[in-house]
């Protein structure tokens, strides 16, 4: 669990919204899936440089051999390696971070009728 804790600590330090991300750790490394977003109300937006720093910090977590990211709002330029924000119209912000384990996930459908 230490690896998971250390990964979450890095994300927390950068005010990343943990609820938008799915984190999986395997023998081959850390796998991030979902949207990489700052928490609501955080005034400084994520920039390509900040994303680069976050990924670099994650890769330096002891025990992490590799960081794989499949964000729906950021992508890495294959040639240059720089992070680029995807165009907003392609994003699905209202959906939860889906797990990549199952192509057609069963949605937990208990309705929250508060408000």
């Amino acid at each position, binding site marked *: 669990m230490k690896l998971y804790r250390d990964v979450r600590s890095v994300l927390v330090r950068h005010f990343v919204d943990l*609820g938008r991300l799915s984190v999986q750790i395997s023998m081959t490394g850390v796998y991030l899936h979902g949207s990489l977003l700052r928490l609501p109300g955080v005034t400084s937006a994520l920039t390509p440089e900040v994303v680069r720093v976050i990924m670099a910090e994650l890769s330096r977590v002891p025990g992490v051999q590799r960081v794989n990211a499949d964000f729906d709002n950021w992508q890495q330029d294959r040639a240059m390696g720089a992070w680029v924000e995807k165009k907003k119209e392609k994003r699905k912000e209202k959906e939860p971070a889906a797990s990549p384990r199952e192509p057609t996930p069963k949605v937990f459908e208990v309705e929250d009728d508060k408000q």
Partner: protein
Amino acid sequence: MRTILSVDDDPKVLAAFETALKQKGYEVFITTDPEEVARILTDHEINLVMLDIRMPQKNGFEIFQELKKRYEKLPVLFVTAYPKSFTMHSDEMIDLWKNEFADGNTDIMYKPFTLDLLYEKVEGLIGSATGDEGE
């Protein structure tokens, strides 16, 4: 066996959590009463607390701060339908985030979610039901 306490004011949500988590082998306690949290934590060895945020008697952040005073490293999974609950709108909220979330023992999950994501978040905090960390 890993043990989870789920706190939510909606019994339907609790029943669904209980069913889903028991299927994975976790022992599950549920309560709609935030005042019961302290007693359950005293009487049982709880490995993870799942907390709703918007509850009429006491909100999840209040419960979180209370239990962190006694169980500093206890993993907590916030479960909410309202992502804006985590808006950094005040110094108090920013301090809470920086001080209480920084150790990596807390995670967030927004409704609706997939069962796979539920299991992933829980396993990411406390490992499998048998205590196998899987690392």
